[in-house]
């Protein structure tokens, strides 16, 4: 973004970003707890709806080992949120959505 000034040569002006709050405890907890729940839910969705469904041989290994990569990705990126509250709201929303999909899947596929 270029700001123009009539009295001086134009100079680039840094875009104003909203300030970022460290919020160490709440962000860490969000990454740890919600990241884990989100990873579990996504792994569950994959287990039900991914290739081969529940019965694919040895798929349980992938289902199990995909949890930590997702978890740690969320955990490591959670500090980009502007505040702890936003982290909890976004991740909580994503987790609830994933869990809802998972339980809906289980319901529709006759496990509940």
């Amino acid at each position, binding site marked *: 973004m270029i700001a123009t000034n009539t009295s001086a040569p134009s100079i680039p002006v840094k875009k104003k*970003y909203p*300030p970022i709050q*460290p919020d*160490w405890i709440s962000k860490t907890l969000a990454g740890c707890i919600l990241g884990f729940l989100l990873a579990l839910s996504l792994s569950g969705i994959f287990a039900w709806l991914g290739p081969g469904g529940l019965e694919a041989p040895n798929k349980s290994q992938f289902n199990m080992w995909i949890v930590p990569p997702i978890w740690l990705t969320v955990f*490591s990126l959670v*500090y980009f949120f502007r505040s702890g509250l936003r982290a909890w709201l976004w991740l909580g929303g994503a987790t609830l959505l994933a869990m809802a999909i998972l339980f809906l899947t289980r319901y529709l596929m006759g496990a509940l």
Partner: protein
Amino acid sequence: MIRGPILRIYKTVHTWTGLIGGMALFICFYAGALTMFKEPLDRWATPVDPDRQWVSEEQMPQLISAVLASYPDAARSFTVHIQPKENMPAPITWRKPLTEERGGPSEAWWATLNPAGEVKGALERFRQILHEALEGLAPHGFQLKNLHTSWLLFPRFKGSFILDFLVDFLSVNRDFFRGIDTNSYLIPFYPEDRECHVITNH
């Protein structure tokens, strides 16, 4: 281009991740080293039991047949320790599985010949610890003594429960490793070690 505030936050994340991860790795590597060298450490930390009865190489066949006759459980798989080792209670040891499950819980047993040439076998470790705990109370009749010595922190305790559980838990793979001859790791410590594993299909 990463903004300054984010960079500062992630520097702190880096520091703490490094600290926590470093401690976890330290525990892993320490436990791994202890597991790898459990047997030499065990032997190193075990005083020789003066009452222990070993058997000459000529008597081994006699001992083996006597053990197989008296303890049919040993027929599945047993180990003959041809040279005396400090941490071995007797020339023949075997593990008796307590469940059908592969790699499940098992008891450690040993057997030797007494001077009269009779076979003498016993359950190692935990019953042993009980015996020793009761030694002061019970009338002296037990011949079972000092079979397993805790090898790490409490050499005064003859087998500390928690450490043995921990070590056993960590060293489940030891026999597997030995099966594919990583024994070469252990041999430099005690070049005179000779033992043979007898595995029969029962």
